[in-house]
Structure formats: C-alpha cells, structure tokens
C-alpha cells in the first residue's frame, strides 16, 4: 500500500509469517523482518532484539496516523486507481496559494493584487478559536488574486489568496 507523508510516498508490502512469529515487510524497496503483536485496533507492539516499541494507530477515511516514540506521523492513503497526491496540495501551504487549515473569519487582508511579496511575509489575518493568526506567504512572488475580504467566513482549505511564485 502507498502512504504519503510530506510529499514523499512510502510503499509498504506486508508478508506475515505466521509460523516464525515475524512479518516480512518492504518499505520503499527496503526489506526487513520484524516481530509484531497487534494488541487492539489502536495498539501495535514492534519487537526487536533490544526494544519493545509500543505504537498507536488511528485512521479516518483517507488518513492513517501513527504514534511512535512520542512522535505523530499522519499519512495520506493513496487509494488504488486514484492518482497520488501530496499533503501540501491538500492542506494550506502549497507554493501558489494561501488557505486556512480550519474555518475562521478573515480579519484583514494585508496585500493587494499585483503586490510583490516575499517568503514568510504576512498576507492575511484570520481569526480562529478566538486567536488572530497571520497566514504567511509560502513563496516569493506576485499576488495573483484575492478571494475573500475582511469579515468573510472562510472554510478549511479554501484558497484565500493565489500567488504567482517567482524563481
């Protein structure tokens, strides 16, 4: 199965070895074998010669999230027959647009169409969960279009500003 994190695809093949007490796996062509106990829907133990790694997992529609050693990794599942997508394109933060990861209210637009902007320059202020948040430019470029005005409500992932990135 193919999983995408931060634009990179991890192809995983599993081959459980019921008798030896291990599974053989390939992650991006690298083969290894690993002892595994599935404790519950949300808990997996990885066993190696010197370490038990308790791992928590949860999934939702197109997403699988793993928690290992206190670190969280959220993968997008690539469904067969559907082309691969990157996390960046789904969420805010692609190079050519600014959007918000959660619903909010546009408080102020800090630029206008045609402005030259630089990487990390604040472009728009959005209020969510009672805090004002500055959304910053994901690249050097020129403001191509602005889709919302102050006072507008904006939904998750809706492009607020489009940018023409420059090299």
């Amino acid at each position: 199965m193919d999983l995408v994190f931060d634009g990179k695809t991890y192809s995983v093949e599993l081959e459980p070895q019921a008798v030896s007490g291990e599974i053989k796996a390939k992650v991006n062509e690298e083969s290894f074998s690993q002892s595994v106990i599935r404790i519950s829907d949300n808990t997996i133990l990885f066993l190696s010669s010197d370490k038990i790694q308790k791992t928590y997992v949860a999934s939702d529609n197109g997403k699988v999230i793993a928690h290992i050693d206190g670190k969280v990794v959220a993968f997008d599942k690539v469904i067969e027959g559907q082309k691969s997508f990157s996390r960046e394109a789904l969420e805010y933060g692609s190079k050519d647009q600014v959007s918000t990861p959660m619903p909010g209210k546009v408080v102020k637009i800090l630029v206008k169409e045609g402005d030259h902007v630089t990487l990390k320059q604040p472009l728009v202020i959005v209020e969510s969960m009672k805090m004002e948040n500055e959304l910053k430019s994901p690249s050097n470029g020129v403001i191509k279009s602005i889709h919302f005005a102050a006072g507008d409500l904006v939904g998750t992932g809706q492009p607020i500003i489009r940018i023409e990135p420059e090299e």
Partner: protein
Amino acid sequence: MFTKILIANRGEIAIRVIKACRELGIKSVAVYSTVDRNALHVQEADEAVWIGEAPAQESYLNIEAIIGAIKKTGANAVHPGYGFLAENHLFAERCEKEGIVFIGPDSRSMKLVSDKVASRQVTEKVGIPLIPGMKNKSTDVGECMAAAEQIGFPVLLKASAGGGGKGMRIIKSRDELASAVEAGMREAKSAFGDPSVYLEKYIEQPRHVEFQVLADKYGNAIHVFERECSIQRRHQKIVEESPSPALNEDLRRRMGETALKVVEVSGYSNAGTVEFLVDKKGHFYFLEVNARLQVEHPVTELVTGIDLVHAQFRIAAGEKLWIKQDDLKQRGHAIECRIYAEDPENGFLPSAGNILFMKEPTGPGIRHDCGIYSGYEVPVYYDPILSKLIAWAPTREHAIKRMAAALLDFPLLGIKTNIEFLREIMTHPEFANGNTFTDFIPRNLPDWTPARSEELLSQAALAAAIASDKPKRGAFAGKAELLSPWETLGDWHIGSGKG
C-alpha cells in the same frame, strides 16, 4: 452548603467543577451551545441546559440565557470557571440582584481589580511596586502613541478588560505602534467585548510569578504560595510550575505579603491570583489580579494539599477561612502542561476536528484534567485548550522527568496538538536549569519543528499499513486476540529479533 450549582463554562474546567460538586453531594448543572451537545461536560453533569448557538456571544457569553438556565433548574449558585463570564462584573452584579450566589468575588471588587488601570491607581497608593505605564485605558491610537513616547520603547500593549494574552503585544518602536494597537483592540473587543487597551514599560527577560490567594467575606485572607508561569507563547501560558525556581524564602515571603496587601486594599474575596513580574535582579512588580480560578490552579493544589474549588464553594457559602497562613507548606514540586489543539509545525495555528484515538496518561503523581474523549469532535468556536497534564513529584527534577515520560506516552490522534512541543520544553537543558524567562520559547525553541528520521517514518509507514490491514469479519469486538494474521504469532524472546 449549596444544593445545586450551575457551571457557566465548558471543557476541562467545567468537568473539574462538576467533579468537585459530585464529591460534596451537590447537584451540578451544565450549560451547552448547539455545537457542544456531545461535549464531555454535558455527559458528566447531573443536568444540562442548552443556552444558544455555537458562537460564544450567543451561548457562553449570553448572560440572559445563563440566568434563565439557573432559574429554570433552581441552582443556588453559579461557578463561572475561567474565561467567558468569569471576570465579567455585570454578570456577577446580575447574579447578586437575582439572589444567585456567584462563586467568585463580589461585583464591586471584581470591577475594581479587573480594570487594570483602576487597580493600578488603588495599589499605587499603598506603595505596591508597579511597572511604569499609562494612567488610563484608551481606545485612541494617538493617545497611546503619546503615552508610549513618555514611557519609552519598548512598551507592552494589553487589553484593559481581560487576561490570557489576548490583545497583548510587545511594541518595539514608533513604527509598529499603530497597527499593533489596532489589532490589539480588535482582539480585545472580540474576546471581552471591550476594545480598551493600555500601555506599560516592557521589562526584558522577566519571569511571570503569581500568588494564589484565598480570602473570605470577613476580611481574612491567606496566600497559598506562588506559581511560576514564565513559559509562554504569544503571551499565552503553556507551562506552569510551583514552587518557582526563582524565589528564595525571603522573596517568597515579601511577595506573599504584597499579594495579601493587594487583596486587602481591593476588598477582594474568594479565590484569586495576584500576578507579578520578577526581573533578573529579583525586583518584583505587581501586574494585576485575576479575579477567578486560574487554568493553572492544580499545581498549587498538588503542592499545598488545598482543594481550591472546594475552598471557593465554602467561601462563597459564607464560611470563615478555616486555614491559617502558618499551617501552609509547599511540599514537592508540580508542573502543568496545557494541551492545546494547535499545530507547532505551522505557526501554532489552531487545529480542530475529530479525535480518532486518545489514551490518557496515568500513573503515580500524574493528574489529567481532561475535557475531551476518543471520538469527540473539537469545535472551532472556542479556546483551543483540550486538557491539562499535571505532574507532581518530591523534587523538581523528578517532576520534570515524570512529565516528560507522561507526554511521551500520550497519543492524541486526529488533530494537531502541542504535546511533542511540550516534551521538547521538558527535555530542554535550560528548563532543567530553571532558566525560565518569558522569552524562553523564542530564545530556545525558535521555529521548532519535530525531527523525524527516515527510520522513524519507515516504521510509522509499516504501522500504518498494518493498521489498515483490517480483518474481514467486521468490527473489533474488544478482543486482543484473533484480530489479524499477526496474532497467530508464537511467543517471542529477546534475541529472536530483527532480521
């Protein structure tokens, strides 16, 4: 004592108060907005009343709706929690008029202390040390500019009506002032309904140290020692501890006495917090009184053995203070980490959505004041605080390790949280050394992003693939066995390991 208390709040603090009611045999009434129908505080209460739509102005800030709910359920008293109406003196006044006990200070002293400018005036008279600043609050940029020139840059902008870092900004120069004041006023208006702000001298690399006080209605007051709350992000506290690593016995005594003097001159009663800045030379400045139970009250409870919510109830019910200052002692060390729904990798933008899986940390010395559960949908309308993790241990070093261990084994999956970031703070050598100044985060963890080795990512991908490889025969029946092919594995030994 009261027979029924309505809690005019939501989330972890509402649940904290509901549990206190349950222990004392007092019936509890929750209130909820439309989006909070499935919230945990509704499930924990004995009764619940719908008070309006999701926006706080229509529900949790809606005085009429809350007064209506109190009357409908016959509650004798209302606990406001923190935030929302907790420091709204009009609400306190309305309760007084309706004959409802407001569990907090009376409206008069609340009005005095919650007005930062008025409280400065009162305290200045009796010689309490203050940071140089504006004499009056303002909604005028020009007035602010003139004051800033007189105080001298850098100056600190604050909302007059509230706390929690809302509207607060450091202004380093003339050029930044206008836009900062405007933004601060907008935030103040949105958060507290009052856009007034004021300016004061900005103290560099200070510590934020506050004293918990308890005062009855008869003029008796004690302080329950300090909390250090210097670890902040955008003026929002995220880690608090007690005792403060910065205080010695002499400083602690002097600050405690000053805190009690503030209480005395403001005629304050019930639980409150007197906030100070402490500079690097050990000078301290009175900032303000928080006229409510604080988010970080558990660290005080764990170190002193006082139950502050029960104390609030008893004082509000008219009891005389039953504890003497000399009976109080700090024991061991407690640290609180606030668990927020926010994304440290992306400028700490708030995160909302469905909690797919959560396992609460447990164990000796661990307390988790929690407002969420597996399957809960975190709404976008309110503060992003999800829960508070508190660790107590005999020493600070041990408490830090206990907290770090608890944060390591605290999966909260489905939304972004600051758990990994908090662990980064707990394991930072400057935190271990007690170098906890308010610039701790910009200084020590600027642009922090979590490290994820390729090895970890491969392992995570493997776990994700195994998790997705569901058995075909339907829902997980609660059985640890027979779930998937891996469960037929034999017993394993050390040494049989890695291929």
